[in-house]
């Protein structure tokens, strides 16, 4: 038990801290692709995938960790992925984003987080379970892309790593934009940890390393998976209501750690304050949270569990989920932001 608490919290603390300081936001990364025509943050998510794939297949090779092989629930992943994508735009952050923004004092994220826990718990254990189980019953025989292609996973690890390295180098070679920086008020370590802007690729590198160590830390407590947010979030709420302590595992302490780590990072850098959005945003946060919980449960993971972890394992589920997360994000961004912009400012693009 103590080991579970300590390993979970440590991993979560590091992740929450890094996400807050690096302003690492998956919904932002997906959204900016159409809103700002900016691929940099999306590329950062692929840096996480590439680094993690090397680490986890190396650990798998030594026998420290094993991967599940229970087919690819394609219908659940497609439907759930799309709904999750829509939900995270309305919720103002993906599952992890919601946990760390709650740590920054965003009340809208507390509302979204409650909705997310509720939606996920309803789908895993409650009245939506029948729909979830139905969607999850359509499975292919193969779980992994390399299994279908009948190649070693290392072929894909090398392919993705080479491709991502090439794109990163190309991005870094672009002429540097003269981005205005605030005058530093802190020095040394304090400046580095609590003030400096972190380059998204540095943040991605750190997230990738944390995602690797998550595997053995979690495995030592009997939970054979890497970073995962949805099941622990559903389980916390269900545990609080039922008192069933089997629901508590490494993941529970991971998500609590994310919240604490983000709070420490925000507090240390003067970025913590209770912030209340307007009523319309709160309504969207609540609704977005609930459907995000449903979506993540039937997709078999959120933008972390599927988008960063299953994708690094080269599970079909991870990659197909990313495609539908993107589609859902774009549809919701179109209806909540782009269409409104076109209505209010007709000459927006011309300017």
């Amino acid at each position, binding site marked *: 038990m103590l080991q579970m608490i300590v390993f979970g919290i440590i991993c979560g603390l590091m992740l929450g801290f890094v996400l807050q300081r690096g302003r690492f*936001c998956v919904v932002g990364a997906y959204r900016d692709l159409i809103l700002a025509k900016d691929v940099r943050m999306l590329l950062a998510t692929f840096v996480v995938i590439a680094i993690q794939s090397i680490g986890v297949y190396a650990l798998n090779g030594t026998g420290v960790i094993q991967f599940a092989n229970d087919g690819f629930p394609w219908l659940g992943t497609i439907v759930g992925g799309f709904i999750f994508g829509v939900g995270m735009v309305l919720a103002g952050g993906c599952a992890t984003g919601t946990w760390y923004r709650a740590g920054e004092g965003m009340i809208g994220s507390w509302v979204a987080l409650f909705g997310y826990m509720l939606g996920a718990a309803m789908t895993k254990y409650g009245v939506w379970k029948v729909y979830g189980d139905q969607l999850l019953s359509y499975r292919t025989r193969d779980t992994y892309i390399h299994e279908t292609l009948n190649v070693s996973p290392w072929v894909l690890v090398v392919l993705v790593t080479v491709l991502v390295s090439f794109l990163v180098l190309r991005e870094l070679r672009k002429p540097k934009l003269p981005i205005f920086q605030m005058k530093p008020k802190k020095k040394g370590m304090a400046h580095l940890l609590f003030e400096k802007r972190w380059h998204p690729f540095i943040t991605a590198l750190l997230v990738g390393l944390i995602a690797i160590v998550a595997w053995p830390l979690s495995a030592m407590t009997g939970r054979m998976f890497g970073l995962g947010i949805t099941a622990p979030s559903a389980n916390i709420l269900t545990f609080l209501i039922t008192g069933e302590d089997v629901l508590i595992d490494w993941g529970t302490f991971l998500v609590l750690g994310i919240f604490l780590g983000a709070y420490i990072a925000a507090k240390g850098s003067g970025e913590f304050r209770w912030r209340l959005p307007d009523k319309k945003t709160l309504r969207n946060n609540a609704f977005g949270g609930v459907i995000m919980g449903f979506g993540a449960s039937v997709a078999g993971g959120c933008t972390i569990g599927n988008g960063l972890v299953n994708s690094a394992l080269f599970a079909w589920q991870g990659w197909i989920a990313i495609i539908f997360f993107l589609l859902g994000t774009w549809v919701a961004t179109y209806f909540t932001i782009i269409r409104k912009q076109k209505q209010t400012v007709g000459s927006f693009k011309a300017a």
Partner: protein
Amino acid sequence: MAKVLETTGMVCPFPLVEAKEAIVDMATGEELIINFDCTQATESIPRWAATEGHEITEFEQVDDAKWRIIVKKGN
């Protein structure tokens, strides 16, 4: 003449979305003062200004999780 844009309480990406809208009918050289409290905008607003060729004349954290940035419209 400076124009003030109050986005405190708005979550991302709305401070930037509003700033983009507000700057459309401004004249070159005019200043837009944006008050915001969404952390991600500390990254996205300066980046947008640099990409669009607007100059940032002032950027400071005025309180816990509260920032003020002044963007001077470029050509």
